[in-house]
Each structure stands twice: as C-alpha cells, then as structure tokens.
C-alpha cells in the first residue's frame, strides 16, 4: 500500500560546533513529484541531504520513508531504501568502462562467480535506454564522455539500483545551456517512470522550470513549501533572504571616466587554448568577461596571472612591459587572483581563518623571517570585520565556515596584500544571496577606491549589474565588447554563442 508521501521529515535537528545546521525541520515529499529544495549556503540544504543519504545522522527527529520510521546509518543503507544521490562532484571511475560504472557493486555474475560481461553490457544498455541514451557505447571508457554525459551515467547508476527517490545536488553547475535542457528532458523521463526527484539548486529559473513544489530553508529552519505553478520568483527570493528582491541588485554607481590603463594585454596566446587576446583594464574600472562554458575565460586570465604564462604576446602594467612567469611575479606586480574553484585553488582547509588571510603577504609581516604576530592578528581582525566574515574566531579552521564566508576570506587576502589589480573568477558562484550582495557591494567599493577589477562570471545579470564594460569570449577568442548600460542579456548571449573574433588592429 503506497502512502501519499514517500519521504517525511519530522522535527529534524542537527548541531555542529558553533552552529545549529538544522533546527526542527518538518516537511514532506510527495510520491512521484519533482521537489526543489532552495536556500542560501548555510541554510541547511546539504546537511539535510547528507542525512537522507546516510552520510550524517540527525541529533533528533525522525525520517519516514513510505510511512515507516527509518534510521539511515550509511550510504549503502540509503541505497537499499531506494534513495540515491547524484552529487555535485560525480563519484565515478574514469578508467573503467561505462557499463562497469553503471553497475559498480552489483555486477551480474555467472555460475562461477565471475562477472558476466555480456549481461553487464546488456543491462547497462537497457538502463541507458530508459534515459533515451541508446547511442552511447557502454564498453567505452567513462573518461571519453563529457561531464554532462557522465552525469547521465551517474543517473543511470541510480536507476540501476532501482531508486525511488533521486537526489540531484546542483546538477547544472557545470553544464552549458543546451546540456541543461537535455538533462531536464531526461529528468522528466525519469520522473514519468515513477521516480520522485529531489532537486537542489541556487538557480531560480530552472527550479521554476522543473519543480512541482519548492521548499525553502533558511538558517537551518523550514520556511515553507509552495506550488511552483502558483508562485512567482520574488516570493521565493523573499522566503530565502527574508527581504525584498529590489534591495540587492544594481550596485553599479556612476563613476568617473576611466582613462588610465593599469593593465594592458597585447595579443597573448596559448597554443591550442586561446589566441590573440588583447584588452585594457583601466584604473578604477570593473571589466567583465562573459562567455559560455568552454569560452576559456579562466584560462586567459589565469595566464595573465602567470598560471601558466602565455606562449606569446605582451603584458604591460602601468605602461611598462613586464614578464609574468609565475603567480609570484604577478603578485609582485600588484595583482591578485580569486580562482573559480575555491576548494582546489583557494582555501587551505586545515589552516585557520587568519592563516588563510595572511598567507600571500606573510613576507610583508616578517622581521628577520619571523612573522610579527600582533600585527598579523591586527590585520586579520580589520579584514574580517571589513568583509563581515562570520567566524567564531580568527583561529577557526576555515573548512568549517560556509562557502560565502570562505570566499570572503579569500577576497580579504588580496585586500591585505594591497593588490591593485584583482582578477575575480566566478567570485559569487555557489554562495548564498546575502554574501553575494555583500561581495557585489565590496567590488563596487574597491573600484571606487581606485582598484581595477576583472570579473569573470557566468551570470550575465551579475555582469550587467556591476561592470563598466563587458568583453565577450567564445572558443578562446574575444568576440565583442558591450556597454552594460545599453546592452541586454540576449545581446550578450548571442555574441557568446555565435560571435566571430573581432579584428584587433587598434593598437
């Protein structure tokens, strides 16, 4: 006998040192629906999902599946109960075949206990067919697939386990628009097959596109659930941040003309990656870089930062030609770089908040190589309070902070180092709306102080709201420049999709 609700949360509480991650959360997921879970980072979404998938146990409260009270002690048990998660970072084995990946841990065996290759391929093929992916050759290595296709493999894996609830954690973070549409089509197929989908995302439009109902969490508390058909976006945003939408957008202020170029990039090239990139960044300017996935914006800007240096071309800082062969020389020339992958290229997870802030400019704080600790703490305190980093203390381990606060710590590094040219690569990706608004305000403030900023962002709205100029890239080349005061989102998107490289003869 099927109950109406497949999954129910009853008074779930979970506490971590210094933070109540989940506070008396009660709501339910209906059988067969697509249910979106929204909320800022630190709202408790991931904690709740970890509890459902058995990676964490609640301090108190009950979890009901099919009306029965269950305790999920590990991921394996969650799978047995029919709950499968497709994590943001896929956990597949690139060197194994697609079929092996789909059926990992449940390979069909023949009478001798040896894996039955034929049956393995057959069953993998069948599973992919239910997703409409008959064209994929299951005997290939997984690594030949694109990220979007690998995600399908991960979904197929969940289906092969006959999951009843499929949890998708920010599935579109790494996808292009076309891939996203394809994903939604497959998810609808899966949903029509009777699988309940729990969908976690920051992106408002797609949640409205795919979800039947939307639940919002804020600061570990359940705020409410609404039918997406009856809701408008502002309503959800209000639930997420507790204040109206209009307050946090459009921080661009009227600033003076930008005439003094601090960074000039002339025709830099990296073979096979990007070619003939030329642009100028002026003092006090915020220069945006728009483009789709694969436009190579990160590659260009990290190359300007010497990571790794370009094969050819010239870089000038304040009119002087400079050789930037490593991040160290870029830093010595007054640059700072916030990488798009905070976890792999940003934080030192084991170190304290303070150590994470001062690491690029410890040399400035030393005397006979010994770090002057009073001064270090003083600088740290100033930066933490200026950026409103929420941390119990400077000695808190950074890995324990939320994404938005980690990002503020990384930004504060380059304020502390006195960098005058800041390259910010997706600085607001994956962080909550409040922190995002604060970072936007900070960027505007820094530009007003005379710092020059390059902003890479995949959110065109963000670029339009805060940049002075926007360059659009496509497939390793700059294809156009637009004025955010007059340009529209569509205009930029068209350039990013179909633009041809402009002939730079002006210098």
């Amino acid at each position, binding site marked *: 006998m099927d109950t109406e609700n497949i999954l129910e949360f009853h008074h779930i509480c979970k506490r971590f040192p210094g933070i109540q991650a989940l506070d008396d959360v009660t709501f339910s997921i209906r059988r067969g629906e697509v249910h979106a879970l929204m909320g800022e980072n630190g709202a408790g979404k991931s904690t709740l999902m970890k509890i459902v998938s058995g990676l964490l146990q609640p301090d108190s409260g009950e979890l009901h599946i099919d009306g029965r009270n269950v305790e999920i002690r590990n991921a394996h048990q969650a799978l047995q109960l029919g709950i499968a998660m497709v994590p943001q970072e896929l956990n597949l084995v690139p060197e194994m075949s697609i079929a092996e990946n789909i059926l990992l841990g449940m390979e069909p065996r023949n009478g001798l206990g040896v894996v039955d290759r034929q049956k393995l391929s057959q069953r993998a093929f069948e599973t992919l067919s239910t997703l409409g992916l008959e064209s994929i050759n299951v005997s290939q290595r997984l690594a030949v697939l694109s990220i979007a296709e690998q995600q399908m493999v991960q979904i197929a894996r969940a289906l092969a386990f006959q999951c009843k609830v499929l949890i998708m954690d920010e599935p579109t973070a790494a996808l292009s628009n076309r891939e996203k549409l394809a994903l939604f089509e497959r998810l609808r197929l899966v949903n029509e097959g009777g699988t309940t989908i729990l969908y976690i995302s920051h992106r408002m439009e797609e949640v409205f596109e795919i979800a039947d109902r939307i639940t919002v969490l804020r600061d570990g508390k359940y705020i409410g659930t609404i039918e997406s058909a009856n809701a408008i976006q502002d309503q959800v945003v209000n639930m997420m941040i507790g204040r109206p939408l209009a307050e946090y957008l459009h921080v661009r202020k009227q600033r003076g003309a930008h005439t003094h170029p601090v960074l000039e990039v002339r025709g830099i090239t990296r073979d096979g990656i990007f070619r003939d990139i030329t642009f100028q960044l002026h003092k006090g300017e915020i220069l945006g870089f728009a483009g789709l996935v694969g436009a190579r914006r990160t590659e260009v800007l990290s190359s300007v*930062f010497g*990571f790794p240096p370009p094969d050819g071309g010239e870089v000038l800082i304040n009119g002087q030609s400079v050789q930037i062969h*490593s*991040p*160290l020389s*870029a*830093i*010595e020339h007054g640059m700072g*770089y916030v*990488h798009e992958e905070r976890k*792999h*290229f*940003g*934080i*030192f*997870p*084991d*170190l*304290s908040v*303070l*150590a994470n802030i001062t*690491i*690029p400019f*410890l*040399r400035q*704080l*030393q005397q006979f*190589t*010994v*770090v002057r*600790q*009073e001064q*270090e*703490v003083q600088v740290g305190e100033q930066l933490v309070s200026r950026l409103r980093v929420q941390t119990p*203390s*400077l*000695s808190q*381990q950074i*890995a324990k902070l939320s994404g938005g606060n980690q990002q503020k710590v990384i930004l504060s*590094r380059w304020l502390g180092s006195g960098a005058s040219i800041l390259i910010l690569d997706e600085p607001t990706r994956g962080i909550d709306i409040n922190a995002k608004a604060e970072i936007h305000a900070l960027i505007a403030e820094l530009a007003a102080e005379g710092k020059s900023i390059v902003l890479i962002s995949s959110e065109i709205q963000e670029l339009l709201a805060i940049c002075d100029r926007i360059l659009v890239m496509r497939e390793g080349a700059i294809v156009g420049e637009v004025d955010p005061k007059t340009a529209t989102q569509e205009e930029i998107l068209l350039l990013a999709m179909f633009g041809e490289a402009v002939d730079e003869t002006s210098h």
Partner: protein
Amino acid sequence: MNKSSATVRSSPTNPASSSNLLSRLLATVMQSQALMLLVFLIILSILITLFAPRFIQVGNLAVITRQTSFISLVSLGQLLCLIAGVIDLSVGATAGFAGICAAILMNATTLNPYLAMAVGVLVGATIGLINGLLVTKAKLNPFIVTLSTSFVISGLILVVTGGWAIPNMPETIQWLGKDSLGPVPIPTIITLIVAGMLAFWLNRTYIGRHIFAIGGNKDAALLVGIRVDRLITLVYVLSGSLSALAGVLMLARLASGQPTIGATWLLPSFAAPILGGAALSGGAGSVLGTLVGALLMSVIQNAIVMTGMSVYWENVVIGLVLIAAIILDRVRSARRQ
C-alpha cells in the same frame, strides 16, 4: 596543531584562579595530540615498570633518551617532508652514508675530526638536494625517487666499506655520542636544541608557514605566490642534513663507522611524526609530537629488552606501531572532514 593564535596569547601570566588554570590545562591536553600521546606514554611506562622495575632506573632512562635522540633527528627530517606533503625514504641510508663518509675522512686524512663530521652533514644535505631537485625539477614521484636514492646510497656504503666497519675513530669526538651532562646524554641535548630551533622556524617564520601551506594545498600555495619547488627542495635538504647529523652522532657514539647505521631507522621515522599528529596527506604535524612519538618508539624497544622478550620481536612491534599510527591518521583525517 594550532599555529597562530596559541602563541599570540603568550602575554604575561596573571595569577588566575587555580581551578580555571587546571581546566584550561586539561582542555589543552585533550586538544594536543602530543600531550595525549605523552599521557599514554606515562601509563605505558608505569605498566612496564610493574613487569620490569629496572626500567625506571636513571641509568636505563639515560639509555632510552640517548637512543631516542638518534631516531628523533631522523624523524624530524621526515616530519618536515610529511608537512610539505612529500616523503623521504632515504633517511636511514643517508644517515649511514654520512657516518661512513665522516669515518673515512677521519681515518684516511688529517682533517680535523669535527670538520669531518661537518662534511658528513654536508654530504647528507647534498643527497637531500639531489632528492629535492629530482622531485621538483624533474617532476618525479617522491616515493620512487627517494626509494631509488636510498638503494643507491646503501649500495655505495657497501662498495666503499666492503661491508666492514671502519674502526678506531679519534677519541676527541666520542664525547658527542657517549658523554652526559649530569644525567642527560649529550646527543639528547643536541637533539633538544635542534628540535627547539626547528619548532620555532616552522611555526613562527613565514617560511615555515609556507611549508604548512604547501602540504595543505599545493595548487592554492602556487596561486598565493609561494615558491613551492624551492621550499620542497629545501625540505629535502633539511631532511638529508638531519639524518646525516644523526648518522655522525651515532659514529661518535659507536667510535667506529658501522655500515649499518640507520638501517632500522626508516620505519620509526614515519611512526614518530604520525603518532605525534602529522598527517600523511600533508599540511599538519608538530615537533613536540614527533619527539614524544620517537620517545614512545624507544621505550617500546627498551621494554622488549627489559621484559626479557627476544629482540627479534622488535621489528614486529615497530611494524605494528606504524600500522596503529596510520590508523590513527585515518581517524583524524576522517574527523577533520
């Protein structure tokens, strides 16, 4: 371990209430791997004393601390490597080769014996430099590089000595290995001085902090302008030098150049830092913890002798301790996430 804030608070102690002090002391003990290990060591020592009362005699304790000093020096080198996220499998062989080089110089030349010892340490530094350059410039895997250099060096020891000891070391240097200041053996004093300097260097200078950062996240370290390759090379040079120092001190203690000096030091060199809180994945570790870890290893070795077990059990026990240390490391890293 706490690298920044603990030392900041070292303001002049005010006469706070003693109960507050006691609870803070307890909290500190619970937080520090080194102090927890020390508590364990004390309990273990009491147990051993119950079975073999001779264990606790001053003479025996001096034997233990003297033995500990050699393992400690090698382990401190390994600690530096572990913090930076690399490993050095050549520590034992380097110690042996440095000892042999110094012994030959003392025997075959008129060089001042102290200078000969210094040359021995320099040889160790050079081996470290080669390891470091192979790892950073040639981009080779630290495990294979140092395993290979270890084989090359132990092979060279046999080539040079033919497997025989080099006897009759000059009397002048032997006090460095054999004498004591009061009850404290000279090698122990040297080790404590070196350890103190190293702890200060690691925790208080920007170079030391950069080494922690490299082990914690190498890519992020590059992006904040840390000279990763240069510091990893430096770490290998220091590791080689510390191992060599242990080797030449052992030479002074044995009064002869033994080709097997250092042969059994490799495993303890891992066990001591890891027991003391170093992470196999890099970015964490403490000098104090390493010293306590090394002391624990010596106590176990000594207990085997004192309780009348066959010395052949020694390797078995040390292997098991290393496994225990690695399990501890797993538990710790699981808890960090």
